[in-house]
């Protein structure tokens, strides 16, 4: 009797367990179907073309069945065993992430193995269609799409909406060649016969693409004597340059992230100091894309989506490209400034805010730089972590509004805003105090002295780093930044964006050269690193001066009072 009771309970619990799992499965399936419908409705409206996905498990299995049914191999041979025994299981998951806060988005961005796109991967979009998407509202976070390995940590965490289970044969180690052969030496695959694993791969791809109406993608690759070579492996590479009119020629884009996109497969390369890049191998045709994003920062286009430059579809061909203007040049120069600051020598300064780093105020998220072409409701270029925090981190911390300006001005503005960001992580409490008093104090004296400190620091970094690029790196001894490195600026004309910081570094006394309307500057040979460290604890203009005096020995330090007094509160 007791045993019968136990058995009954066991049966009831089992049924309940299976039912709840099935319910969860149904809920997930519903969620997937709903998500797919919503995505279709949203992106078809943009003009994008939804492609029938050859890589779904269902389509790949159909393709394999067709191959087996067609029997294009010798019966009772090792080939027939290979084909008969071959089975398709999911290798990847095509997923969508829908972060609701920047904190959730930051969790995604901290994972450097995830390469995310803010558009679905089974759609065809032109650059124009992507660029003319309705802009995200300030604070709105896009949906992100990517493919993840089925046995990855990301897959087990399940914080995504599953769009499809995939089998990507090009990624299957089963089909890896141990040697890469130049395509001219490849045997190619006979469309009528399967002999090797390579042949099976080619036939599988062909059948799956044909089944889904995508065979035109494969047929663009010319065959060799009627043999297929569309799935063969090759190593993408290339060179990227940008025309910088201030330098007067094309210059390499360094540190840019180049992606090779092929449906759900992504390869990544970073351009070196000469603009050269290469990626791991891909099979068949793939599209080169420059994604203007690195781990620490992401450049957003005017609509606040991820800034990208779509390159061509290529197979076994390098991509050597020079950006000469438009959005792409704007993004390239902003990227270059951010890259130089984050990954260059930056005169020994601390880094601008680093993604995932734990600072005294908490964990930092990836810095978003909005490359604005027009300013909505009057926002000029700016940095604000406060605006970002108050909007639950939904707003881009940095806005660069320098569209249509000379390359060095775009570069310098980006450096300027990143220097504010650096200041904010160097000493958050003092920075917040300075900002608050700069804008919210009822006392004009307080506002002026705070604002002068707030803006003179980034102006200093801007001048120095722009000179480093345009004068030193590109060897132009005649180059000077705006208004002769801000030296041609009278004391009365500007009270906040002063030359005072750079004046402590250079050996140029404006008053002596240009006249009494200009600052008296007998201070020289401080380093920008010293000026940076003296910011710690400084909450207004003269406090910075006092820190510099107390921390550093410099024979011209006796003239610091004179220099700082050029600008009155």
């Amino acid at each position: 009797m007791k045993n019968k009771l136990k058995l009954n309970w066991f049966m009831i619990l089992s049924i309940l367990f299976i039912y709840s799992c099935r319910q969860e499965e149904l809920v997930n399936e519903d969620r997937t179907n709903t998500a797919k419908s919503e995505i279709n409705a949203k992106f078809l409206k943009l003009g994008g073309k939804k492609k029938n996905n050859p890589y779904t498990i269902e389509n790949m299995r159909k393709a394999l069945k067709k191959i087996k049914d067609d029997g294009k191999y010798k019966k009772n041979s090792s080939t027939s065993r290979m084909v008969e025994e071959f089975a398709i299981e999911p290798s990847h998951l095509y997923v969508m992430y829908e972060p609701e806060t920047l904190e959730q988005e930051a969790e995604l961005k901290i994972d450097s193995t995830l390469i995310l796109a803010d558009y679905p991967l089974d759609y065809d979009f032109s650059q124009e269609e992507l660029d003319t998407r309705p802009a995200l509202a300030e604070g709105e976070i896009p949906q992100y799409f990517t493919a993840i390995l089925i046995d990855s940590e990301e897959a087990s965490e399940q914080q995504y909406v599953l769009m499809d289970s995939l089998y990507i044969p090009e990624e299957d180690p089963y089909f890896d060649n141990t040697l890469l052969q130049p395509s001219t030496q490849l045997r190619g695959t006979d469309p009528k016969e399967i002999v090797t694993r390579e042949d099976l791969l080619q036939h599988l791809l062909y059948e799956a693409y044909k089944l889904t109406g995508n065979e035109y993608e494969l047929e663009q690759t010319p065959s060799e004597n009627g043999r297929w070579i569309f799935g063969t492996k090759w190593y993408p590479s290339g060179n990227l340059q940008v025309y910088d009119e201030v330098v007067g020629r094309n210059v390499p884009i360094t540190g840019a992230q180049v992606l090779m996109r092929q449906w759900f497969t992504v390869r990544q390369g970073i351009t070196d100091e000469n603009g050269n890049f290469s990626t791991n191998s891909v099979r068949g045709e793939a599209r080169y894309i420059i994604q203007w994003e690195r781990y620490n920062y992401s450049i957003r286009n005017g609509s606040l989506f991820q800034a990208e430059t779509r390159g061509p579809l290529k197979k076994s061909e390098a991509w050597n490209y020079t950006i000469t203007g438009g959005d792409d040049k704007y993004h390239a120069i902003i990227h270059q400034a951010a890259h130089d600051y984050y990954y260059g020598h930056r005169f020994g300064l601390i880094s601008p805010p680093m993604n995932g780093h734990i600072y005294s105020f908490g964990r930092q998220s990836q810095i978003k730089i909005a490359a604005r072409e027009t300013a909505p409701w009057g926002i000029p270029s700016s940095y604000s972590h406060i605006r970002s925090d108050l909007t639950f981190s939904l707003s881009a911390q940095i806005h660069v509004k320098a569209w249509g300006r000379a390359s060095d001005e775009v570069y310098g503005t980006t450096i300027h805003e990143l220097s504010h960001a650096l200041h904010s992580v160097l000493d958050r409490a003092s920075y917040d105090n300075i900002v608050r008093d700069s804008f919210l104090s009822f006392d004009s004296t307080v506002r002026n002295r705070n604002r002068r400190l707030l803006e003179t620091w980034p102006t200093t970094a801007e001048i120095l780093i722009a000179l480093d690029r345009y004068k030193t790196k590109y060897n132009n001894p005649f180059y000077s930044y705006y208004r002769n490195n801000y030296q041609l600026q009278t004391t009365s004309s500007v009270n906040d964006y002063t030359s005072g910081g750079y004046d402590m570094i250079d050996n140029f006394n404006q008053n002596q050269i240009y006249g009494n309307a200009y600052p008296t500057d007998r201070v020289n040979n401080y380093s920008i690193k010293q000026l940076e460290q003296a910011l710690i604890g400084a909450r207004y203009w003269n406090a910075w001066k006092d820190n510099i005096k107390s921390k550093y020995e410099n024979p011209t330090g006796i003239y610091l009072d004179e220099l700082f007094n050029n600008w009155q509160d």
Partner: protein
Amino acid sequence: MNYLTIGKIKNMKTLLYTFLILLLSRCGTEQGDPKLHDYSIVNNSGVNIELIPYYNGVKDSSRKISITNGNRIQKKLEVLPPYNYGLSMKSFFTSNNSASNITQLEVVFNNSKKTIYEDCPNLICSNNRNIFDKSHNDELVESYYVTSEDFNNSTNCNGNCY
């Protein structure tokens, strides 16, 4: 909860939202009024003139600008924070506002006489009539007058100046 209380709550919410909007709008750096740069080159020389730039030492006649006697050319630019751009006399001779590669400017008077001004280090020129001198480039509003004296002091071409 009566209507009076609800009304007060609504007022408080409105006040709070207004405050937040004001706060957010003041929370970024780079706040300030636009500054208007206004640069002119005025031809009061008594004859027609042509201004021909040199880039990296190479004359580029395709970029020349003609100003008839008594007329002017003018450029205006509204500059926003961080105020790291603006106008100079060089700005007339570039496609955007960066003019870092212009090295000389030739002023040709009626295709009979000419003067060549060279860009000066630190904008300090030995000749204060030099259009590149700081005295013509340091304010928000600048007008450079080409005068009859400039014409008289220019060099005779002894034929075609080109």
